[in-house]
C-alpha cells in the first residue's frame, strides 16, 4: 500500500505506534462524599496504527477526544481500557520509570506556543532539557546540593544579617547573643532536614545514599553557626557560597559545551540562529516559538512525533512556514507524524492517512485523497462540506448539521451521531456500528452507507449498544 505521492519501498512498513481498542473514561465525582456519579467517555474503544515514515491525521471537533487520544498514546495518561503498543512493545502496563525510557523515541509538540515554553528558562535550557534529563542520569547530587546550599544559606542569612545589626555591643540590647543564635540555628537545621526529606520524597526513597553525605555537611555547617562567635558568621557564609559555586558552576561548565553544541545544531535545523540561544520565550513570535517546540521534540532524535494542533494558533503565512518545515524534516530525518487537528485543509495538505473521530469513537479512516474524494460517513460528509473554502466560486450547497456535540457523560445510544444524522434509520439508535471495510483500507462506521453498499443487512448481528 503506497502512500500518496511519496516514493516508498513496497515492503509493508513496520507499525511504530498502535492503539488497540483503547479507552479513557474520566470519573466524574460529585455529591456530598465526592462519590463517582458518572464517567466522561473521552475516548471509547479506538484502534489506530501509525507506520514508519507516514503522516497519520486524527480529525475531530472539540469534545471528540482527539487530544485525550494523543496523551494516551504518549502515556501521559493511564488508559482505562485497551492497549498501547510502541515499536511492537506493550507500554500500557509498564511502570512509569520504564515508560520514561521509552519516551526518548516518542515526542510531542503542543498546540499553544505561548504556554508550552517555560517563561523563566532561556531557549538553550528549554531545548537542552530532554538532553539533560536523559543524558546526565548519574548526577543526583546536583539537585540535592542546590537545596542544601539554599537552606543553609537561608538559615545563615537570618543569623548573619541579625549579627550585622548586633556588631556593636551597645546595640546588643534585649535580644542578647545566645537566644538569637539558638533561634536561627534551630531554624536552619529544621529547614535543612525538611528540605532534604522533601527532595528525598520527590526522588523516591530508594535513591537514599546520594543525599546522606549532603545532609551531614549541612548539619555541620549549621552546628558551626551554633558555636561561632559573632565575627565568624560572615566567614562561614562565604565558605558556603564558594562551595556552592564550585559544585554548581564547575559541573555545568564541563558538560555544558557538549549540550550547547547539540542545541545550536537543533536550532539551525528548525531555521533559528545561534544568537537566539540565551533569549527568553517572550522575545519570540508565535511561529518562532513553535519552531523551538519542534527543536525540543527533535532533541532525542525520536522516531514518532505527535503534533497536537501545532498550527491552529498561528496566522496563515506562519502556518505555511511551519507546515513546510515539518514536511522537510520528515523527508530529511525519516520521521513519522501523528497529526491532531480540526482544520481539514491542513489535513488534506500534509496527511497520508486520516481518521475521523466523533464523541470518542473513530467513525471513518482511510487514505486522505479517497476520503476527501468520496466521504462515506455522514459526519465526514458534513465536516468536509462545512469547512469554508478560500474560493468564492466553490460556494457549493452546504450540509449544515443541527444540534450540538453530544454530552460526554451520557452519550446517545447506538451510533453516537444518530441524533444529528439525516440518514439515521431504525438500527442506528439501537446498535453500535462497527468499522465496515469499503476496500483499500477505507473503513467507516455507518449502517446507512453499509446498507447502501450491501455490506450490512438488517439480519447480520452487530455489537449491541452498551447501555451507559
Amino acid at each position, binding site marked *: 500500500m503506497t502512500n500518496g505521492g511519496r516514493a516508498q519501498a513496497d515492503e509493508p512498513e513496520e507499525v511504530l505506534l498502535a492503539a488497540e481498542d483503547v479507552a479513557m473514561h474520566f470519573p466524574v465525582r460529585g455529591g456530598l462524599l465526592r462519590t463517582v456519579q458518572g464517567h466522561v467517555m473521552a475516548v471509547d474503544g479506538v484502534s489506530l496504527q501509525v507506520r514508519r515514515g507516514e503522516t497519520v491525521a486524527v480529525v475531530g471537533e472539540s469534545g471528540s477526544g482527539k487530544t485525550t487520544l494523543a496523551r494516551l498514546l504518549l502515556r*501521559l495518561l493511564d488508559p482505562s481500557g485497551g492497549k498501547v503498543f510502541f515499536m511492537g512493545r506493550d507500554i500500557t502496563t509498564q511502570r512509569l520509570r520504564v515508560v520514561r525510557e521509552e519516551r526518548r523515541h516518542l515526542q510531542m509538540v503542543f498546540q499553544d506556543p505561548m504556554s508550552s515554553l*517555560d517563561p523563566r528558562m532561556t531557549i*538553550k535550557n528549554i531545548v537542552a532539557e530532554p538532553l539533560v534529563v536523559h543524558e546526565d542520569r548519574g548526577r543526583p547530587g546536583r539537585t540535592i546540593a542546590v537545596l542544601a546550599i539554599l537552606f543553609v544559606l537561608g538559615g545563615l542569612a537570618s543569623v548573619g544579617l541579625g549579627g550585622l545589626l548586633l556588631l556593636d555591643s551597645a546595640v546588643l540590647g534585649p535580644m542578647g547573643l545566645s*537566644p538569637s543564635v539558638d533561634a536561627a540555628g534551630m531554624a536552619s537545621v529544621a529547614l535543612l532536614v525538611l528540605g532534604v526529606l522533601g527532595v528525598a*520524597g520527590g526522588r523516591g526513597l530508594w535513591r537514599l545514599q546520594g543525599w546522606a553525605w549532603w545532609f551531614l555537611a549541612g548539619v555541620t555547617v549549621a552546628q558551626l553557626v551554633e558555636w561561632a562567635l559573632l565575627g565568624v558568621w560572615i566567614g562561614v557564609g562565604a565558605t558556603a557560597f564558594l562551595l556552592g559555586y564550585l559544585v554548581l*558552576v564547575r559541573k555545568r561548565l564541563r558538560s555544558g559545551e557538549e549540550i550547547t553544541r547539540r542545541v545550536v545544531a537543533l536550532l539551525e535545523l528548525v531555521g533559528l540562529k545561534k544568537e537566539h540561544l540565551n533569549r527568553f520565550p517572550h522575545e519570540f513570535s508565535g511561529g518562532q516559538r513553535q519552531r523551538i517546540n519542534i527543536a*525540543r521534540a527533535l532533541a532525542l532524535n525520536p522516531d514518532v512525533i505527535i503534533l497536537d494542533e501545532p498550527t491552529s494558533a498561528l496566522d496563515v503565512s506562519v502556518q505555511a512556514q511551519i507546515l513546510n518545515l515539518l514536511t522537510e524534516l520528515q523527508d530529511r530525518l525519516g520521521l513519522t507524524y501523528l497529526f491532531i487537528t480540526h482544520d481539514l485543509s491542513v489535513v488534506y495538505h500534509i496527511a497520508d492517512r486520516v481518521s475521523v473521530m466523533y464523541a470518542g469513537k473513530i467513525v471513518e479512516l482511510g487514505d486522505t485523497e479517497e476520503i476527501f474524494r468520496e466521504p462515506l460517513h455522514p459526519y465526514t460528509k458534513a465536516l468536509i462540506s462545512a469547512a469554508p473554502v478560500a474560493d468564492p466560486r466553490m460556494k457549493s450547497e452546504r450540509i449544515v448539521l443541527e444540534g450540538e456535540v453530544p454530552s460526554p457523560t451520557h452519550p446517545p445510544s447506538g451510533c453516537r451521531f444518530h441524533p444529528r444524522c439525516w440518514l439515521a434509520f431504525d438500527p442506528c439508535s439501537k446498535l453500535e456500528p462497527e468499522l465496515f471495510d469499503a476496500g483499500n483500507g477505507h473503513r467507516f462506521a455507518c449502517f446507512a452507507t453499509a446498507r447502501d453498499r450491501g455490506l450490512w443487512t438488517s439480519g447480520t448481528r452487530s455489537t449491541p449498544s452498551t447501555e451507559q
Partner: protein
Amino acid sequence: MVVEVEEGTVVSLKSSWRRFLQDHASRISELKYSLFLFRKNRLAVLGLGLILGVIAIALLAPYLAIDHPDLAVINGEIQQRWGIYAGQEFLPPSLGHPFGTDNFGVDWYSKVLYGAGVSLQVGLLVVIPASLLGSLLGLLAGFRGGIVEEIIMRIADIFLSIPSLILAIAITAVLGRSLVHVTYALIITWWPWYTRLVRGQVLTIKERQFVESAKSVGASPSRLMLRHIMPNSISPVIVQASMDFGYVILTAAGLGFLGLGAPPGTAEWGVMISEGINYLFQAPWMSAFPGLAIVLAVLGFNLIGDGLRDILDPRLRR
C-alpha cells in the same frame, strides 16, 4: 585567580566569569529592564529610601544618638539600661532633644534610633524562617497532592482560623514575656500564609502546558518541582515576604506595646509607646515619635512590596 579543580581541566575563574556573563546576557538585560521599571515607579523608590534609612539608622545608632544605653545581664537575659538624668524630665522637642525627653530625662530621639535595630532584627528572624518553612510546605503540599496535601493544608487551616495576633498573644503569654518569645510566636502564626500562597501558585502552574511538555520529555517529579514549578512560583512569595517584613515589625511592636515583648525601659518602639501613655497629655511626644517611626518603616516595606508586584508580574511587564 586560577582554580585547579580536576586533573587536567584548569578552569580560570576569569574565563568562566566571561562565559557566565555571556550565558546570562539576557537574564542580565531582564534585570536591567526590571531596575528601569522600578525607577519609574516613584512610590517604590520612596519605599526603598525609607527602608535604607531605617537600616542606616539601625547600624549607625551608636554614632547618631545622644544618649547611650549600657547592657546588664539580669536573670539570664541581656537588658538595656538607660541612665537617669534628673532635671531633664519632660523637655519638649527642641534642638538639643529633637524628640524631647521622657520621665527619666532620657533623650527620646536616641531611644528611637536604637529601636530601629531591634525592629529590623525581629523582622529578619521572623520573615526568613517563616517564609522558607511555609513555602517549602506549600510546595510539598501543592506538588505531592493526596494525603500529604490534606494533612499540611488542614494544619495550615487550623492556624489560619485563629486570628494571628490573638494566637501570638497567647503564645507569648504562655512562654513568658521576652522579645525572643515574640519571634517564636510570630514565626508560628506567620508560616501558614506562605503555605497557602505557594500551594495555590503550584496548583495553577502544575496545569500549565510547559510542565506537561517537560513531563512528556521524561523529566522526573523532583526535576519538575525544582526547575519548573519553583522558579515560577517564587515571585509572589518575594512580594509577600517584603510586605510581611513591615507587618511583622507592626505586630511585634504591638506585642511590645501590650507589655508582652521586651522588658520596660528597652529601646523598642512598642514599649516606648506604651510608656508614653501614662504621660499622654503631659508629654505627647513620648508616644508620637516611636509610632511615627513604625509607620515610616512599615510604609517603606509596603511600597517596596507593591513595586515588586508590578515588576515581577509578567502581564504588567510588557
